[in-house]
């Protein structure tokens, strides 16, 4: 088929581009899209052109030139992209908040970024070839060599903290070294090491540790103070030594139980039903107990840290009284424990068989109270807690009602009260 070869094609701007008449036409002035369009159009013509068309060879040569120009443009674009990427990564390397070092087996600096140079307090060019050990405090020299030995002997990251003399003044800072071996194309090994100044972090950790220790001391001393006071109260109650020991053990166990429960949560709130179950369990070995709090798994009442120990000791004292005042003839009758809720109010009722309350007993006024009930009155918060005692049909019932602000309804992180 005879083809009419175009003398020109047109670029986007409508400029005529000579294909045949101008063999030195500067195709590099065209965009890649324009060159591609020429190729596509020409390809269509070549497909239908006669093989022996004399114009075809010339036209074909032009097309090769166009193709080469496209490849050239692609190469230039790739090179530009690579240079931009290289510059970007060089910036990331140089201006990283961490110092980067490349070390050989002897700890000689092969390469480093600007941050590392700043940390070491010299210009980068003056640090190349210098041993890193010369910037460490003498006590850390051995540690660096050991760090390098471990780094070069395994493929995993090796971490250590060393004291580095930083800046021009040589201020000693604690620096974490994270090192990993790399192997170059010739099989040579070097160590890539990241330097992170952890002085401030370590100072904060130390301060936090000291605060925690002080807090633990504070709590331990407070608990010891409370226990000493409880022991002293027993002395005033004319109790037998065995009874004093038993009572004190239960009180200490109760306090320990609260802290055991608090340790399960971050903010130390204790679920009321969990606390009750733990306190009552202390008596389960010696006395039959009929408890229905086990159905209280949906209990929404939580005790804050400051209320947990006092309320737990109140529950312990109520249980202790219930066991103590049960007549021997009713030793097989269980202590009744029931926890119920009415909206935001939780009601704990403990009942025991009894010969009855003393005639002069009045919990409200404090008349006729033993040491235990006196303790109860002192432990109960003035707001949000109410304790009453009553008797009916040979049973004595103590009823503890708890509500906000003693109780939080729902977990404190989403508390309502």
């Amino acid at each position: 088929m005879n083809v009419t070869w175009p003398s020109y094609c047109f670029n986007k701007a409508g400029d005529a581009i000579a294909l045949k008449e101008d063999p030195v036409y500067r195709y590099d002035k065209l965009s890649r899209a324009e060159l591609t369009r020429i190729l596509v159009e020409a390809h269509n013509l070549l497909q239908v052109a006669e093989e022996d068309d004399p114009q075809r060879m010339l036209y074909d040569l032009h097309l090769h030139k166009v193709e080469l120009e496209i490849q050239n443009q692609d190469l230039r674009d790739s090179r530009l992209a690579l240079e931009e990427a290289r510059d970007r990564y060089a910036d990331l390397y140089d201006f990283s908040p961490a110092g980067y070092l490349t070390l050989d087996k002897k700890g000689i600096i092969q390469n480093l970024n600007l941050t590392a140079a700043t940390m070491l307090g010299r210009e980068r060019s003056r640090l190349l070839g210098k041993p890193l050990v010369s910037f460490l405090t003498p006590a850390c020299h051995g540690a660096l060599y050991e760090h390098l030995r471990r780094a070069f002997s395994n493929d995993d990251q090796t971490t250590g903290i060393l004291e580095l003399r930083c800046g021009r003044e040589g201020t000693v800072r604690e620096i974490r070294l994270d090192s990993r071996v790399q192997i170059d194309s010739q099989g040579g090994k070097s160590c890539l090491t990241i330097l992170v100044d952890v002085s401030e972090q370590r100072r904060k950790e130390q301060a936090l540790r000291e605060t925690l220790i002080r807090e633990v001391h504070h709590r331990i001393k407070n608990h010891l103070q409370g226990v000493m006071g409880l022991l002293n109260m027993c002395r005033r109650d004319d109790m037998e030594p065995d009874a004093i020991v038993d009572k004190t053990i239960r009180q200490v166990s109760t306090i320990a139980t609260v802290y055991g429960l608090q340790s399960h949560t971050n903010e130390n709130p204790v679920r009321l039903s969990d606390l009750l179950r733990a306190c009552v369990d202390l008596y389960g070995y010696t006395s039959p107990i009929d408890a229905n709090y086990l159905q209280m798994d949906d209990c929404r009442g939580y005790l804050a840290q400051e209320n947990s120990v006092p309320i737990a000791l109140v529950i312990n004292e109520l249980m202790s009284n219930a066991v103590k005042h049960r007549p021997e003839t009713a030793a097989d009758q269980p202590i009744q424990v029931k926890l119920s809720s009415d909206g935001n109010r939780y009601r704990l009722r403990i009942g025991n068989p009894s010969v009855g309350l003393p005639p002069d007993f009045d919990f409200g006024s404090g008349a006729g109270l033993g040491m235990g009930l006196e303790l109860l009155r002192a432990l109960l918060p003035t707001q949000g807690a109410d304790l009453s005692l009553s008797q009916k049909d040979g049973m004595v019932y103590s009823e503890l009602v708890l509500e906000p602000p003693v109780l939080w309804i729902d977990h404190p992180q989403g508390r309502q009260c």
Partner: protein
Amino acid sequence: MKILLVDDDRLILAAMSPGLRAANFEVTTASGGDAAIELCKQAPPDLAVLDMRMPGTDGMAVACWLREHSRIPFLFLSASSETEMMDRAAKAGAVGYLVKPVTPAQLLETVRAALKNVAEQRSPDG
């Protein structure tokens, strides 16, 4: 004589009060600094026994208030045995500093001695 015991730990208040009551002191308690100041306004005690570390208004803040607004003497019953805290207590005008844990007898003895010293200092001959 009236003693005000101030501590955020109610167990300590509950356990230390009976010993003082048994020695015929009238004891009132407060489980926070604000409540302590309120009690001092309403019924000033003869001596306040303050815990140093409490959430919110702490013992030192109560001590400052007492010094500025009353003549109520005070001593600290604190878990801290740091010299710095003892110095701060002395500078605040505390008449005593007890490090927890103390026996009820130690507390009683310190309270009696503090009251006696204050009485002697305030007497015309003191």
